């Protein structure tokens, strides 16, 4: 009895210790995020204070109010930026996923000449840092007169995302047994129907995660966007952060507030899609 009781106690203590440890680790990981939220709520003096002030003394939503109160009253055209970001990110993600699905499926299912070379080539494009391309891209875009347009940025982001989505989606289609598509064809499907009825739903979680990655890449991208955009026609939220820098001052609070505005949609999207990310759907398809 004694041994059982002490074992039970030990287990409880271990559980509590485990949770406390996890909490501390999460706190550490989330610290930058928390700092941004906190900083968006307090005056610059407090932000820059040394040693740092952990507990905000004066909390206010002034930065948010100012942000939305229009140009000239300390605000920035945040609605325009938000709209640009949304249009550019969503469109480029949809296109990248469409191409990624077609490409990933082809790589997963078909044999063709130069397949591995092509695959390697796609991967190699990822090794080139985007910033290194920004100057040549700027020249080309200037010639084509597509600087400061949605189209220009969408094109750049599609190119940025396609190799990665192809690679990711290829992996997910590989996990869907070939037998299933064949069984569907025998059950009366065309190749096309077999894809949409059977293979697509099973690769769905993978495609969704590729979508999130593509979306977040476009949503957060700064280096290219800062070169290829000029005005409220196409400036995205990350570029909009620069509006808070003036010649001699930086409005840290405003910047943090905009950063929070940027983070929120990304968080919401991730939460929505996350339940689709749960794998294991394919288990039970084959074998006993």
């Amino acid at each position: 009895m004694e041994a059982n009781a002490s074992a039970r106690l030990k287990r409880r203590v271990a559980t509590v210790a485990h949770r406390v440890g996890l909490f501390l680790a999460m706190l550490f990981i989330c610290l930058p995020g928390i700092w941004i939220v906190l900083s968006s709520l307090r005056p610059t003096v407090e932000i820059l204070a040394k040693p740092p002030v952990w507990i905000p003394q004066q909390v206010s939503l002034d930065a948010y109010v100012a942000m939305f109160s229009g140009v000239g009253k300390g605000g920035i055209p945040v609605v325009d930026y938000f709209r640009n970001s949304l249009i550019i990110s969503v469109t480029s993600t949809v296109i990248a996923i469409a191409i990624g699905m077609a490409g990933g499926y082809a790589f997963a299912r078909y044999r063709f000449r130069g397949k591995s070379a092509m695959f390697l080539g796609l991967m190699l494009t990822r090794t080139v840092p985007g910033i290194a391309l920004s100057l040549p891209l700027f020249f080309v875009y200037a010639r084509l007169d597509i600087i400061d347009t949605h189209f220009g940025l969408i094109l750049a982001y599609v190119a940025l995302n396609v190799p990665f989505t192809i690679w990711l989606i290829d992996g997910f289609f590989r996990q869907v047994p070939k037998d299933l598509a064949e069984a569907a064809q025998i059950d009366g499907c065309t190749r096309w129907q077999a894809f949409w009825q059977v293979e697509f739903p099973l690769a769905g979680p993978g495609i969704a995660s590729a979508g999130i990655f593509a979306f977040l890449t476009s949503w957060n991208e700064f280096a290219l966007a800062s070169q290829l955009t000029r005005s409220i026609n196409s400036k995205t939220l990350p570029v909009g952060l620069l509006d808070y820098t003036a010649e001699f001052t930086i409005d840290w609070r405003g910047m943090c507030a905009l950063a929070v505005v940027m983070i929120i949609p990304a968080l919401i999207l991730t939460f929505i899609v996350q339940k689709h990310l749960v794998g294991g759907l394919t288990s039970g398809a084959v074998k006993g």
Partner: protein
Amino acid sequence: MAIVSLKKLTKRYGNMEIVHGIDLDVSDREFIALVGPSGCGKSTTLRMIAGLEDISGGTIEIGDRIVNDLPPRSRNISMVFQSYALYPHMTVRENLGFSLKIAGAPKEEMDRRVAEASAILGLDALLERRPSQLSGGQRQRVAMGRAIVRDPDVFLFDEPLSNLDAKLRTQMRTEIKKLHAKVKSTVIYVTHDQIEAMTLADRIVIMRDGYIEQVGTPDEVFQRPATRFVAGFIGSPPMNLHEATVADGNVVFAGGQSLPLPGRFKANVSAGDKVVFGLRPDDLYPVGHGLHSGDAADVHEIELPVTVTEPLGNETLVFAEFDRRDWVSRMLNPKPLKAGDRVAMHFDLSRAHLFSAETGKSLRV
């Protein structure tokens, strides 16, 4: 009515020919088994019939139509895969009804046919489950149900039982046989398991390296194997096959020992011919423990040392050394034997087989 007819059916991958122009006629409602070791082309042949592989030459007829270039969905076949290939994102009911849904069948008909198939296979309690919640045997049953619902001209089975454990396999074998009696469709069944082929099929097609070695009823392929390969492949434990040379009325083995040449082969061989001598374990037995009475004229008695025994309960497999090789014999009503014992063995030469060492063909007259 569904006759399946293969004419000069060929499959090539690049320069590699996998199936070498085989001919086969399957009659309506016949249960035919394609059997052979892995890589013999049996699965490829089945997949060509299904339309999952393009054919490189020859023709495939199902019913009275040549279906060479028709997609799988237009051939009115169904197929049970080795992996079952159940759709994991659908319930059992949806799996069963999938083909009807694709065909745009009205809901009432769909429900009726799913209910029929489910009743035949005893799936009623499982209809709302997903494949991941089923056991191997249940998945197998759903896969068969999905095939039945289509009401096809031809059922194709691709090693459907090889993922099941031994006990379940025997059970499902019986179910497949019952199913065939009920649905009365033409069945083409691929397996590497000769026992499955023997127990299920009306006729067996034994394939090897992309050729058909022999087509026949289970009895024919067992009693009168056309080639050395078939002799070794069909039957468990396999036939004793040993190379020998013909010399004045005897077959002389490599080690110098000999047996009398059975009379019915005499016309087909002459002295000096290289042959392969075959004798089933059933036709070699300790005296008094055989399947046959042993009083035939061609029974030959030799005393041999026992090397290994494998007791199976109702019988014991006795490995005895003759001509410095192990020969398997089947001892019925087994008596205790141990390695090293000497035991008098009957060689029932009236049932022996002789194959040409060169071509592998049977030398039966």
